């Protein structure tokens, strides 16, 4: 278990919670500490409860836990919302001089630090800096050298001028001094710093950066929580490489623009969340049957319908696997961590072009809003490989013309993969259509040709199965009798849960699956285990269904669908309860 500190700032949306939290997270990262952040937020601009949480340790942290050590509460509700995570000894920093906070009762056993945040901020130059005063106070509690905040404040306020930066630094120091002078309480924290250099980014940013590394030049999308960060990241940056982000009028347009760009030869992508995927489904079949390489990213959130837009869920697996009428060949890749968001995006573009198929990159809200530290080498750009598949240029095109000198974009090669000629290639002119077509891309209803084309599209998947490495990621004890399987963002929580489980005497083998289709064959691994538990953030166990179908054997399920990601300690208890047959009364669903 990492020796960690769990810190949070909470208040109303519009209170600057996010930017204040980010300043603290960045300061920790710059001080060589690992950071893992999470957010509680609502789909509104102002009002409601929102919080930014930071877990930090000198060792890597991969998850959140059910514990809060230092809480900056800008509202009374913030304390109520976090009651379950607060513990004896937790420190609560609040402004007791604010009219709304005068009656705050700090729960027994906890330490309440009333700090006049607003008054001290005014002393430093303006009430707007009250949150920064609180950061200074938190630094004193955590014994975290306040100089580490300075660089973060530079980064955050640098473009507003030197005076503003200096005022903020002063505000932080006033907060720190106030706590040092007014409270002689000995806190148990002493945040160590190291010389390590870390970068701090979230899953959406990692997807965007992966797209740029992979040569993506065209992104069309429509803003939607929690996928908008991908679009915002790429906007401006993609221009440096001659690309463009286009904000379309809706998701129907977004996917069709991306399809057009891909037909023109660009590496193209769109990203959205569930409601947008619903609209884009219309075009899945067209992308697949015209054999157009396209990366479609779904950053999942709670559904169905508008659901809970700012809450976690892995409910779109079936949609990604089966969405669209008819039989639509597609690949489905689901990154399991923030850094994997980068690498799986790079892979997704290669699969799309090599196999000329839609590739679904399925991420989720937990990855999207988590800011996590990594050594920069985790994104070693020299490792990025770009494979464009069977692109045919003017010199090679003669080999792909029929006896009438017509280019054959759907030629039924043995591996199922046809040549691609980008528009502008001499003698390459060809059409394609969402109608069933022949090798020339022209409509047909001839039975033999229909079978030939369906088979060729299916053959591409077979070829990919053989050619690529669809391996899983493995953690824990490889020889354990208990096998836990999960997909997507649960990996971090489960990795840490392994430690809790080991402490309680449970050896567990953990397989984290990033490839949903094609996917690894887990028959042997499942056969070797006494207990098999599939962990996922949905109510019905969509991945568990898939696994059962693959191996023709029932598995046990741990599901969570309250809109909040798994926490490591909570997940460990769920696994333990499943193993010992205890009904925890939570959201666990066990087949049979």
């Amino acid at each position: 278990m990492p020796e960690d500190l769990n810190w949070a700032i909470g208040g109303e949306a519009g209170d600057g919670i996010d930017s204040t939290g980010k300043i603290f997270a960045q300061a920790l990262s710059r001080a060589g500490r690992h950071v893992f952040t999470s957010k509680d937020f609502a789909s509104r601009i102002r009002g409601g409860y929102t919080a930014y949480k930071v877990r930090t340790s000198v060792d890597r942290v991969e998850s959140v836990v059910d514990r809060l050590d230092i809480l900056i509460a800008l509202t009374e509700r913030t304390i109520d919302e976090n009651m379950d995570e607060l513990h004896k000894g937790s420190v609560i920093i609040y402004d007791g001089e604010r009219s709304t906070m005068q009656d705050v009762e700090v729960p027994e056993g906890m330490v309440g630090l009333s700090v006049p945040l607003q008054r001290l901020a005014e002393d430093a130059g303006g009430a707007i800096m009250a949150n920064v005063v609180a950061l200074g106070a938190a630094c004193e509690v955590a014994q975290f050298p306040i100089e580490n905040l300075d660089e973060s404040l530079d980064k955050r306020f640098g473009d507003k001028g030197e005076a503003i930066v200096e005022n903020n630094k002063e505000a932080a120091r006033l907060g720190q001094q106030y706590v040092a002078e007014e409270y002689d309480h000995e806190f148990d924290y002493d945040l160590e710093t190291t010389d390590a250099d870390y970068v701090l980014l979230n899953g959406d940013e990692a997807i965007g950066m992966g797209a740029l590394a992979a040569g993506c030049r065209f992104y069309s999308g429509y803003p939607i929580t929690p996928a908008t960060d991908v679009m915002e990241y790429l906007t401006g940056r993609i221009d440096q490489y001659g690309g463009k982000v286009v904000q379309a009028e809706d998701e129907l347009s977004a996917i069709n623009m991306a399809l057009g760009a891909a037909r023109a030869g660009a590496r193209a992508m769109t990203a959205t969340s569930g409601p947008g995927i619903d609209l884009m489904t219309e075009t899945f079949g067209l992308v697949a049957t015209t054999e157009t390489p396209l990366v479609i990213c779904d950053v999942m959130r709670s559904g169905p319908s508008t659901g809970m837009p700012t809450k976690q869920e892995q409910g779109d697996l079936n949609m990604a696997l089966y969405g669209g009428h008819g039989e639509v060949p597609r690949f489905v890749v689901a990154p399991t961590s923030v850094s994997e968001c980068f690498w799986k995006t790079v892979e997704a573009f290669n699969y799309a072009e090599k196999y000329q198929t839609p590739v679904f990159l399925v991420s989720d809200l937990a990855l999207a809003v988590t800011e996590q530290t990594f050594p920069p080498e985790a994104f070693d750009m020299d490792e990025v490989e770009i494979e464009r598949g069977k692109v045919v240029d003017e010199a090679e095109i003669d080999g792909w013309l029929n006896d009438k000198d017509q280019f054959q974009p759907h030629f039924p090669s043995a591996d199922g993969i046809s040549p691609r000629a980008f528009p502008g290639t001499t003698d390459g002119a060809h059409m394609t259509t969402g109608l069933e077509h022949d090798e020339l891309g022209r409509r047909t209803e001839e039975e033999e040709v229909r079978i030939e084309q369906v088979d060729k599209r299916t053959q591409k998947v077979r070829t990919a199965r053989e050619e690529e490495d669809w391996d899983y990621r493995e953690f824990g004890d490889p020889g354990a009798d208990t096998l836990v399987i999960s997909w997507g963002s649960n990996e971090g929580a489960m990795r840490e849960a392994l430690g809790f489980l080991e402490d309680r005497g449970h050896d567990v083998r953990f397989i984290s699956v990033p490839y949903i289709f094609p996917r690894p064959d887990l028959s042997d691994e499942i056969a070797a285990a006494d207990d098999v538990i599939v962990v996922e953030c949905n109510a019905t166990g969509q991945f568990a269904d898939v696994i059962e179908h693959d191996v023709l054997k029932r598995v046990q399920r741990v599901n969570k669908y309250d809109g909040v990601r798994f926490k490591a300690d909570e997940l460990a208890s769920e696994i333990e309860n499943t193993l010992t047959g205890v009904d925890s009364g939570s959201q666990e669903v066990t087949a049979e």
Partner: protein
Amino acid sequence: MSSDVRFTDFKSDKQPTWCPGCGDFGTMNGMMKALAETGNDPDNTFVVAGIGCSGKIGTYMHSYALHGVHGRALPVGIGVKLANPNLEVMVAGGDGDGYSIGAGHFVHAVRRNVDMSYVVMDNRIYGLTKGQASPTSRQDFETSTTPEGPQMPPVNPLALALASGATFIAQSFSSDSQRHAQIIQEAIEHNGFGFVNTYSPCVTFNDVDTYDYFRDSIVDLEEEGHDRTDREAAKEKILEGDREYMGVIYRDENSVPWEEREGLDRNMADIPDGAPDDAMDLVREFY
């Protein structure tokens, strides 16, 4: 690109299955002539077609082409053009594709003003599904699904374009092959989104908006002394409503296409075979 391209080079070896006498024959011929006349050839041309009788055009023409899903032809065309501004992009569709299921895209494509042309083969009926009301059908036009007529006024596509900030609005008639080809050519040459609503009569299911009707009622703006650069005059003509005009109704000579404003001039298909040289800078931004 060769200088000796003939319009027949844009013809595929597939025989059209349109009904004999369909307006779409003339519409397509004019498109091919205009493409050849403007110095394009099949290898630098991308045609996007929608769904419906009009959508078959991609099959009967020879060029790079995509026949997509219903109503989304314009976004596909925009994607193609932005990814490679060197291509000549022409989108063709019907009145259902453009003004019903795709009406939202029409408005925004007009606003975006990407340098491409859009030809709507308007027959005021759904032909491929055998005769139902379209968004341009008359209010009292009786069909199998609207026995009393749609009881809604028809969409005025020219007004829709004007209200969306169009830089080029024209109307043509497939039967007047010379004028039709000229008008399409002007749409191609226009520096922006060249929109042409082409009357393309359906001889099988529409017995109201027939060749005879259009021949009798159409007025050529060339003969009216209309100033195409005068937006007010264009507005008056478009909103008159009871006359069928042919010709270029409005053309903004100062139009700058979106891609030009955004500085897009590269073929996005060209990328390095690894991450960009300075890619580690992207990582370091996150310090």
